[in-house]
């Protein structure tokens, strides 16, 4: 193999003195060869993005490189001054970022933003530059390049913006592309397209790629080699095949074992006579807006949704952003009012029920939200949050507290924690607390709205396991909303696939996953990264 384009050796980056550990990154070494894709993978806090930023010379001032070298084509970047780094950016190394929504300047046209790179680094005339920008826009497969050139970022979708970012990073054909979680904020089908585009462009140009991700599916899809980071230390480095199929380090084994399998397991059948807890009939939710000139505009957030969940059963609603899956969850929990249709909750139609009568029924359906950091009032102790609901329904404080203590044990937290405040808990622990709060109401239906999406994969696996245990133990009906097909495959008995507000496919999980009927479902499954890859399934 030819000389590496990027060679990081013994890199150590210090954190500010008051941080919880001394190094953001400690003694990390790896290479990226021309035309090679190296994935840096790790959970949040592993230091993977810090490495990416240190290569670009965009490290926060609080972080300092304490030791080691970063060689870009045999030039040590740790010694380069700001002027030299500026010359190298976009010419020898380009970077794309996680949030395409915010990474582009909202008040500049997309074409002008790409053009700025040429203005800065070349002596080309205006006409020539414009032609090159248009060519580049074409190469990232954006339709109608002239129109794209003149568009503002807010007029484009997330995937299109990420393409503009890629065009910007690659227009001067750098030898190294650094991609920092570039598809994390995108839907799975868009993600597949962007990954494909990156693959295509880098192999055409023989670009070395340093790709940062937390998603082993993406790793399997894209990487030639993988470096696994754990709290700033590189624990394993090898070819994708080696690391994913036969990991050697216990941490890597644990991580890979936590990745949910795409193949749904065989699940115990739900008894035929299990009572129906929730049933919706032709549920509709419309948002109406009036505008001058345009008249009345109606957006169907959810249309004609009919689903059914029985006691002890988990129904998954799967879909991309904007598919209406959360709208359904919010209608069912009565956080918003449905426009039409019926919602039967344990025999009562709650869709059009007056607020006063609803109060008693509220108890039967509880919800766990996505963001564990915002789901608990930071000013109230965990105990206060958990007993708030039962107190509303006339339970005595002593009883509610005793119940809360039991629940803390059920969600595997120390009951002593009831007197503490949310900020004293980690994200995974907070999500357990939210589950305990929901259970304190003794609900019949538990709605989990992307409840594990914000968690790291190892924590995610544990929370999923917990939810499953609780459902079995309490014989809850569960409605599980997720965008993640792997997660759905693991936990759901039945899935409903939603697209554009409608349920397009609905059936037992194994049937839907093994033999998808609707073309949208098929496209969705095809897009799932690393679907066919044989991940190691160790027993540890």
């Amino acid at each position, binding site marked *: 193999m030819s000389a590496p384009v990027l060679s990081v050796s013994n890199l150590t980056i210090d954190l500010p003195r008051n941080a919880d550990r001394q190094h953001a990154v400690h003694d990390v070494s790896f290479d990226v060869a021309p035309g090679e894709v190296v994935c840096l993978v790790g959970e949040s806090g592993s230091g993977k993005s810090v490495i990416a930023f240190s290569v670009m010379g965009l490290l926060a001032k609080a972080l300092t490189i304490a030791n080691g070298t970063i060689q870009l084509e045999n030039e040590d970047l740790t010694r380069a001054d700001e002027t030299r780094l500026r010359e190298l*950016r976009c010419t020898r190394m380009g970077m794309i970022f996680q949030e395409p929504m*915010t990474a582009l300047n909202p*008040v500049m046209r997309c074409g002008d933003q790409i053009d*700025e790179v040429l203005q800065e680094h070349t002596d080309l005339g205006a006409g020539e530059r414009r032609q090159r920008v248009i060519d580049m826009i074409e190469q990232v497969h954006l339709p109608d390049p002239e129109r794209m050139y003149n568009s503002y970022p807010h007029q484009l979708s997330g995937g299109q913006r990420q393409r503009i970012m890629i065009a910007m990073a690659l227009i001067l054909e750098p030898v190294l592309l650094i991609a920092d979680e570039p598809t994390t904020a995108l839907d799975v089908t868009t993600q597949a397209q962007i990954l494909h585009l990156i693959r295509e462009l880098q192999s055409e140009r023989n670009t070395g790629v340093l790709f940062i991700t937390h998603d082993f599916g993406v790793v399997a899809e894209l990487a030639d080699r993988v470096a696994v980071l754990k709290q700033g230390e590189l624990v394993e480095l090898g070819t994708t095949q080696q690391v994913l199929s036969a990991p050697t380090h216990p941490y890597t084994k644990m991580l890979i074992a936590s990745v949910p399998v795409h193949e749904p397991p065989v699940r115990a059948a739900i008894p035929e006579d299990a009572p129906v807890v929730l049933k919706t009939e032709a549920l509709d939710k419309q948002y109406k807006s009036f505008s001058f000139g345009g008249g009345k505009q109606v957006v169907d957030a959810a249309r004609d949704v009919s689903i059914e969940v029985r006691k002890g059963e988990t129904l998954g609603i799967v879909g991309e952003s904007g598919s209406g899956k959360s709208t359904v969850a919010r209608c069912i929990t009565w956080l918003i009012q449905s426009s039409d249709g019926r919602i039967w909750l344990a025999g009562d139609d709650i869709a059009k029920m007056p607020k006063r009568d609803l109060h008693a029924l509220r108890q039967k359906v509880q919800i766990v939200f996505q963001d564990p950091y915002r789901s608990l009032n930071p000013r109230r102790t965990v105990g206060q949050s958990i007993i708030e609901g039962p107190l509303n329904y006339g339970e005595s404080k002593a009883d509610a507290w005793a119940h809360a203590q039991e629940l803390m044990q059920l969600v595997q937290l120390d009951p002593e924690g009831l007197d503490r405040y949310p900020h004293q808990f980690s994200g995974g622990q907070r999500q357990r607390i939210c589950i305990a709060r929901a259970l304190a109401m003794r609900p019949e239906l538990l709605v989990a709205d992307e409840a594990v999406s914000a968690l790291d994969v190892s924590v995610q696996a544990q929370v999923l396991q917990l939810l499953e245990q609780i459902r079995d133990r309490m014989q809850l009906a569960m409605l599980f909303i997720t965008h993640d097909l792997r997660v759905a495959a693991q936990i759901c008995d039945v899935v409903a696939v939603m697209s554009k507000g409608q349920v397009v496919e609905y059936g037992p999980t194994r049937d839907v996953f093994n033999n998808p009927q609707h073309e949208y479902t098929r496209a969705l499954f095809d897009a799932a990264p690393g679907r066919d890859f044989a991940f190691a399934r160790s027993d540890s």
Partner: protein
Amino acid sequence: MWTYLFKRILAVIPVLLVVLVVVFLMLRLTPGDPAANIAGDAATSEDIAELRIELGLEEPLPVQFAIYVRNLLKGDFGESFYYKRPVISMIADGIEPTLSLALFTIVLACLVAVPLGTLAAYKQGTWIDRLVMGFSVVGFSVPVFVIGYILIYFLSVKLDWFPVQGYQHIADGIGGWAYRLVLPSTALSVIFIALIARMTRTSVLEVLSEDYIRTARAKGLPQMKVLLKHALRNAAVPIVTIIGIAIAILISGVVVTESVFVIPGLGLLTLDAIQGRDYPTVQALIILFSVVYVVINLLIDVIYTLLDPRIRY
């Protein structure tokens, strides 16, 4: 965009209506009979009764309000009790000095404050930043009449560089006009420089932490370009907003400054009218100032659509 503007213009109507109602009720419902107030101490009760009819005070309140709005729409602001002249012509006389002072001030303030605030943000945490911020908090705390008197005492009385007070019409020579505006505008602009510099600093700092600034740096742009082309341009919306809010403070400032520097503008007219209990004039002036405030903020919303392509409903 036109929809947005249309909506914005429609939204002005209730605001103006509230202004009219508040001003109307304030003058009608305050303790004491306005007719008695107007007629003065020497008036007999017959005089007052006659005046009440003349002023339409015997009509029920809604009718009075309708007459009052109708007259306003016709551009009829009534006649000054005090000077026995149409209010509109008195306002016309006062517009030039007030407008001169206000424009002079706001231009001066922007020219000084925006670069100062940007500099402070760029040099965040250094002594330059602390100096600008220190000036800003002091500038916000010194009353305009104190600054005015300090300037007059040292620059006019002691050094004799500027005239103590007074105003020269622009028609009598631009030089003299500008010369006489220097002191009042300087005094009045201090608070705006403080306000706008501070706002500029805050919004530039906020923008500097945005993702697209990181993108701009990843492109290899030099710091100055990142600052001026990407940061300042995006910080413009909040800066323009604060200028809109500043208009309210400017109007208050104009009243005080005109009083200190004896500039025969609308501010001085307002004070005279209030001291002379000249209600038609007071009423017209409050409405005029409120309308100016509303219209300027409407214009600022129009400017938004030019500054930020995202606002195009």
